[in-house]
């Protein structure tokens, strides 16, 4: 099995998000592999362990993206590719870059996270599948590969759908698919010696302009009542129900 994992580097989910001068500040933030993409890396490694083959990880990002790719290598990935994006790249541009690199290479399986925890758009991987003319199954909770077919248990709004798909296919990982491993010390040492291939849009012959533009970024503000109730549990329960009906008007 030749497996390609699409990976994005994101803020650690515990990070505070600060907006300054119309931008999200990322100077002092810990960057990690997007948690959903980490499930994809883990699944790729498990499939390689069962079926043989190679695992390649690819990411579109600036210089710091090497840290995430190096972690995937330390987990056990074989190869890593970084693509430097042009300014203001959106999902349309990123998908075109990823697909341009993958086109003509014979991967049996593409894996990616179901969504990224930063933009949360969940578009890029499915766009890549479309560009490569590949079927996809999103939000996998369980994945089995055998004889050119994948059987996927997928999350469909809380219900589980069992789907089969012919390979090559793209499958996105949902939480619950697996428990990502920690890189081992030998893995980390080995990863340090590996080369990360770095390409640009020009190297890939991709010349597309973004289709969307962000016109403003702002911090969330919510005015809350912050009203603490008092009395016995019974009194509090009664007061809350009254307040929800008469003051907040939500029931």
């Amino acid at each position: 099995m030749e497996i390609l994992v699409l990976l994005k580097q994101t803020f650690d989910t515990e990070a505070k998000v600060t907006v300054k001068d119309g931008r999200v500040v990322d100077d002092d933030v810990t960057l990690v592999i997007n948690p959903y993409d980490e499930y994809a890396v883990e699944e790729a490694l498990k499939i390689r362990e069962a079926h043989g083959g190679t695992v390649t990880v690819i990411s579109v990002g600036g210089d710091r993206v090497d840290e995430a790719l190096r972690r995937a290598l330390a987990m056990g990935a074989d190869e890593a590719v970084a693509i430097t994006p042009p300014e203001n790249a959106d999902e349309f541009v990123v998908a075109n870059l990823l697909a341009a690199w993958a086109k003509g290479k014979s991967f049996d399986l593409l894996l990616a996270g179901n969504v990224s925890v930063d933009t949360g758009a969940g578009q890029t991987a499915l766009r890549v599948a479309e560009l490569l003319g590949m079927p996809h199954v999103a939000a996998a909770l369980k994945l089995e590969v055998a004889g050119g077919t994948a059987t996927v248990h997928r999350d469909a709004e809380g219900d589980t759908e069992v789907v089969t798909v012919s390979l090559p296919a793209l499958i996105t990982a949902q939480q619950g698919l697996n428990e990502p491993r920690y890189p081992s010390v030998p893995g980390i040492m080995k990863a340090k010696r590996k080369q990360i291939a770095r390409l640009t849009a020009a190297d890939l012959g991709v010349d597309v302009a973004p289709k969307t533009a962000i016109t403003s970024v702002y911090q969330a503000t919510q005015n809350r009542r912050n009203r603490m109730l008092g009395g016995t549990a019974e009194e509090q329960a009664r007061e809350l129900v009254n307040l929800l009906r008469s003051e907040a008007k939500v029931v």
Partner: protein
Amino acid sequence: MARNILVVAEVRNGQLRPVSFECIAAGRAIAEGGSVTAVLLSQADVDGSELIARGADRVVLVKGEHLKEYTPDGWLSALQQVYLAEKADVVLMGHTGIGRDLLPRFAMRNAAGMISDAIAVKLEGGQVVFTRPIYAGKAYVTQIVTEGLIVATIRPNNVAALEADAGRSGDVVQSEAAPVDLRTVVKEVVRQAATGVDLTAAKIVVAGGRGVKSAEGFKPLYELAEVLGAAVGASRAAADAGFCDYALQIGQTGKTVTPDLYIACGISGAIQHLAGMSASKVIVAINKDPEAPIFKVADYGIVGDLFEVVPLLTREFKALLG
């Protein structure tokens, strides 16, 4: 500029989904004299009149043996067929399980820009401007599609639907989807949503955290949810501890919810969790620890044991609503 809007409507459990009406309302707000057409890509036994009453000018009911269940190949091919016939300028759908799966591929097939999970849509200087959360609601952006076809999914429960007006009239037309090879096949669907209410579209969410202590501890939460017609959710701590399925998890990893009412039971309020629920309209927190950060984002707080308070709430709501 008059825009022709195509809304991909959805049926779940035999009913049109409220978010489909919300998308029609969003479409009306940006059509500027253009038309709003709702399309149903299923075998569902719906005649389309409700979509007209909710603001659509036209309804296209697409039939096809292969559309009974959602598959990306089947539905994308049918949507593309309708889109080309209708010459739409904007395609909208709910940010639902199917919307999230279908529209990115549709956008790419048409080399279009797409805005996912919009919570508001408006016209500004003749431009269609979407608002959407980033970092699961820790911040927001406004975003536009700069040229060509506009594709967007709209988060349930954020745009107000139009009141049903039975006096409105409009055409309902039937269409036949061309057959297509399905590369993905649905073998089985296992129903798991315990209350039958979809978490991301629910008007009320009752959520449990580490304080529920066990899988059994969710029982009083389900009882309260049933009385309220609410969905049950959980914090990452509860899911990680194995008290519930990850499908219930609300937070930056997990689902983002914006219900009218969020009742947090035994949830401390880690930043990861707050990201997924802090845009709820009204937040209630029940926690033993008066210092729990969840109280800082709450409208109403009760310091107490959820196992005592939640059953009392269930009783009070039953008396009120029953």
